[in-house]
């Protein structure tokens, strides 16, 4: 799955997702990606977020919506991402998932749930400081 957040020069935010879902899913199964607030969410008055991982679990917690609402309160994007991962962890300690977050001013962050074989999450960032798309890595919690 890809989840993407784009913030323009004036602070306008868009978000999106695209996926082919889980291997060997039962016919008709849909994951979190096409659900606003689950797979991704954007509000130009607060920020944007996108999630990836086990959609059957993650969609129950609306992590992207929750992260944006955390950022609306002024929370740092990295902390907002970590808090939504922690919220899911309480119920599903072994879920596979990660979230990226960005606020209106262009600050960004990410978080993931640490599992054997999944200890870091890789994501791509482009902004004027980086000049070109660059890969960034965050340690899972």
């Amino acid at each position, binding site marked *: 799955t890809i989840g993407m957040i784009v913030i323009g020069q004036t602070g306008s935010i868009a978000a999106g997702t695209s996926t082919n879902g889980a291997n060997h899913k039962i016919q008709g199964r849909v994951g979190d990606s*096409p659900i606003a607030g689950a797979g991704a969410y954007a509000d130009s008055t607060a920020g*944007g977020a996108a999630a990836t991982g086990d959609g059957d679990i993650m969609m129950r917690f609306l992590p992207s919506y929750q992260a944006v609402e955390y950022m609306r309160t002024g929370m740092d994007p990295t902390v907002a991402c970590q808090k939504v991962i922690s919220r899911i962890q309480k119920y599903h300690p072994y879920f596979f998932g990660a979230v990226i977050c960005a606020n209106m001013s262009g600050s960004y962050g990410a978080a993931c749930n640490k599992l054997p074989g999944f200890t870091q999450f890789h*994501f791509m960032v*482009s902004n004027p400081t980086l000049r070109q798309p660059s890969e960034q890595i965050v340690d899972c919690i």
Partner: protein
Amino acid sequence: ASQLPLAINTWAFRRAAEAAWSTLQAGGSEMDAVEKGCGQCEIDQCDGSVGYGGSPDEHGETTLDAMIMDGNTMQVGAVADLRRIKNAIGVARKVIEHTRHTLLVGESASMFAESMGFPCEDLTTQSSLSIYLKWLNRSCQPNFWKNVTPDASKSCGPYKQTAKFNKEEQTVWERRIQISNHD
């Protein structure tokens, strides 16, 4: 202000990031950038988890889900369980532009896509067919059924429900979704 514009995406999908960034640099809108970025991943079949030819379902078919959201207007366009159409994020954008709905699913979403001019194509590839056949040869393991007969942890379907519900350890099924198999 120097931190804007910004494009950020999950996973190390470089070509998708480049497509989004170059769209912004060329004067495209934020929505254009998201559509181009995610669309590039659909073309590239990023990681096997995006686009055609990946993650076959229990009948071997690849279906696509996509969503795009405008944070200015809070408009959302989405498609789910989309069949035989490669450009799922493009169809999601058309849901915003040409309907008053938010989410279209299944065969009806494919009919909408065709009416919007998207080509109808088989999403199966040799790779997805191979993944499916290997799974069949492993007695359909792993799968997402529970409390059915025959025992889904040992056999393929068709399944019927059982009256008795067994409690299973959460970790067992949660670990079926991992780095090469995810939303």
